[in-house]
C-alpha cells in the first residue's frame, strides 16, 4: 500500500507539472505577441457598436488586469497565476456581462458527456475487435473489419465529421446535424428530452468513435498476436480450456495494460478531436464555445476554455494513471 502511495504522489507531481507548463505556455503565447491585445479588443468592440462608456471602461480594466499588461514580466506572470487559480476570467465579451466561468460550466457537461461516452465506446470496441482479430487470425470477417476501421483511422476528425455532415445534412437528412437537443423542448429528465439529446449526439459521437477505433484495434491486434505465441497460452489450449475463456481472461487481460497507458497518452488528442467535431455539428460544448469566442474576439473566453481544457485533460489523465494498478497488479509491488 505504501508503494502505491508513492506511485500516486509521483503521478500527482506529473499532473502539476503538466498544468504548470500548460498554463505558462498560455502566458507566453499571450504576452509575447506583437499585438497589444487590450487596445485591439477595445477597438474591435467599439467597432462592433458597443458604445456604452461605462461598459467600455469596465472592460478595459478587466482586460488590462486579465492580460496583466504593465509592470515587469515576472510580476505579470504571478498576477496571471493569481487570476487562473481563482478561476476568474472576468466577464465574457461576446455575451456581456455573463462571467466566462458561467459559460464554461454550462458547456463543460456536454463535452465531458460526449467525450467520456465516445472514448469508452471506441476503446472497448476497438480492443475487443482487435483482440478477436489477433486471436482468430484467419477469420475473413475480422480481416474485413480491420481494413474498414483502419481506413478511417488516419483521417482527421474534421474531415470525417464534414463527410458525415455532407451525407446526413445534404444527401440523406434523417439525423439532426446541429445543436445539442431540439430547441423547442424544455430541459429536464424526461424521455422526450433525453431522446432528443441522444439523437443529436449520434453524428458527433460516430465521428469520434470512427477515428478512434482503428488505433485501439491495431494496438490490440499486435499485442494479442504477440501474447498468443506465449507458452502459457499453448498450455491452456492443450489443457482444454475453452477458447471463449482463454481470449478474455488469458490473452486480452495481459495485453490490456499497454492499452491503458495508451489511453492516458492519447486523451489530449481525443479531446482536440471532440472540440472540432462539436464545432462542425454545433454541439453546445467547449469546442463550439472556443471557436465562436475566437470569431467574436472574446479573449477572456478563449483563455478560459484553453485553461480549463489543459486542467481537465491532465486531471483525467491523472485519474487513469491512479486507476492503472487495477489493470496491472505489478505496479502495486514496484
Amino acid at each position, binding site marked *: 500500500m505504501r508503494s502505491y502511495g508513492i506511485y500516486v504522489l509521483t503521478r500527482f507531481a506529473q499532473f502539476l507539472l503538466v498544468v504548470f507548463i*500548460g498554463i505558462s505556455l498560455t502566458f507566453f503565447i499571450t504576452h509575447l*505577441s506583437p499585438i497589444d491585445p487590450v487596445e485591439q479588443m477595445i477597438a474591435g468592440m467599439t467597432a462592433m457598436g458597443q458604445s456604452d462608456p461605462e461598459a467600455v471602461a469596465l472592460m478595459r480594466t478587466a482586460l488590462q488586469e486579465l492580460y496583466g499588461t504593465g509592470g515587469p514580466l515576472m510580476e505579470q506572470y504571478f498576477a496571471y497565476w493569481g487570476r487562473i487559480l481563482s478561476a476568474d476570467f472576468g466577464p465574457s465579451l461576446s455575451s456581456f456581462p455573463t462571467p466566462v466561468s458561467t459559460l464554461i460550466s454550462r458547456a463543460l457537461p456536454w463535452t465531458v458527456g460526449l467525450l467520456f461516452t465516445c472514448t469508452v465506446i471506441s476503446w472497448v470496441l476497438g480492443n475487443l475487435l482487435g483482440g478477436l482479430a489477433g486471436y482468430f487470425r484467419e477469420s475473413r470477417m475480422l480481416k474485413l473489419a480491420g481494413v474498414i476501421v483502419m481506413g478511417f483511422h488516419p483521417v482527421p476528425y*474534421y474531415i470525417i465529421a464534414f463527410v458525415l455532415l455532407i451525407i446526413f445534412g445534404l444527401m440523406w437528412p434523417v439525423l439532426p446535424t446541429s445543436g445539442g437537443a431540439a430547441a423547442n423542448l424544455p430541459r429536464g429528465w424526461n424521455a422526450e428530452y433525453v431522446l432528443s439529446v441522444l439523437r443529436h449526439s449520434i453524428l458527433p459521437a460516430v465521428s469520434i468513435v470512427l477515428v478512434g477505433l482503428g488505433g485501439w484495434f491495431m494496438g490490440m491486434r499486435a499485442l494479442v498476436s504477440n501474447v498468443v505465441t506465449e507458452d502459457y497460452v499453448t498450455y491452456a489450449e492443450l489443457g482444454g480450456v475453452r477458447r471463449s475463456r482463454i481470449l478474455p481472461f488469458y490473452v486480452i487481460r495481459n495485453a490490456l495494460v499497454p492499452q491503458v497507458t495508451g489511453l*492516458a497518452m492519447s486523451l489530449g488528442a481525443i479531446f482536440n478531436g471532440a472540440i*472540432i467535431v462539436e464545432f462542425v455539428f454545433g454541439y453546445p460544448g467547449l469546442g463550439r464555445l472556443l*471557436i465562436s469566442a475566437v470569431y467574436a474576439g472574446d479573449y477572456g473566453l*478563449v483563455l478560459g476554455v484553453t485553461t480549463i481544457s*489543459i486542467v481537465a485533460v491532465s486531471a483525467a489523465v491523472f485519474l487513469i494513471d491512479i486507476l492503472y494498478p487495477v489493470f496491472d497488479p505489478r505496479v502495486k509491488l514496484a
Partner: protein
Amino acid sequence: MLKILRDLFRYNLEFAIGAVLMAVILGMAALSAFSPYPPANIYVVAPDVPPSWAHPFGTNSRGQDVFWQLTFAMRNTLLFGFAVALLSRLLSLLVGLVAGYQGGLTDRVLMSINDTFIVIPLFPLLVLFYFVMRDYMNWALLALVIACLGWAYDARLIRSIMMSLKTRDFTKTSVFSGMKMHEIVVREHLPYVMPIVFSTTLNNINWSIGLEVTLSVLGFTDINKPTVGTMIFWANQHSAMVAGVWWWFVFPTAFITLTFIALFLLAVSMNEYIDPRSRLARMGTGGG
C-alpha cells in the same frame, strides 16, 4: 535500395497501394507548376461551372478553376507537412537520443517534459496562438509552432530504442576506444534509429496536415494562401453546400482523404518492414 522497393511492392499490398496513391498525389502537386492561372487571382473563369472537359473539377463561386486551385493546395499542404515533420524530427531526435543515452536524472527530467507535451491538448493552444497573432499568422510561423509542439510522442519512441542500443556491446567498445558521446550517438547509434525515424516522419506529416486542414477550415491561418483547408474554408464561406456547388468541397476532401490513407499505408508497411519477424511472415505466406 531498388531491390527493397521491388520486394515491398511484390509482397506488401499496403505499400503498393500507398505508393501508387502517393504518386498520384505528388503528381497532382507537381502539376501546379503548369497552372494557366495564378493561384491568388479570383474571377479568372466563369463562376460555379460544374465539372466538364474544360474544367475537370468545375469552377468555384470565386471564379477559380477548382482543379488548378487544388494542385496549388495539394502542393502547399504537402510542403507544410514536410516542413513540420522535418523540424520536429530534429527536436525528437535530440530529446530521444540524449534521454535514452544519458539515462538517470537527465532522462527523468526530459521525459517529464516530454509527457507533458503528450498530454496537453494542443488544439486549444493553437487556437489561442492564432487569437493573439491574428494577421501576423502565416504558413511558416504555424509550421514552426506545430513542430515545436509535435515532437514528444516520437521522442519517447526513439528513447526506448536508444535505451536498448545502449546496452549492446558495441556501445561499450566505442566508449572504451575513447569516442565522445555525440560521436557514439551520431555515428554508431543513429543508423539503427533512422528506419523508425522515417516511419514516424510519415505519421507526423499526417498529423500536421490534419492540424493544418482543421485550423485553415476554421479560418485560423492565412486564408489567402491556397491549401486544402483554405479551399474548404472558402467553400463554407460561400455556403457551397447549400448552393449545390458540391464539386468545390468534394474534390479537396476526397484528395486530402486519399493523402491521409496513402501516408498511413506507407507508414504501416514501413513499420512492418523494419520488424524482420513480420516481414518474413508475410514473404513466407506470399502476402497473407
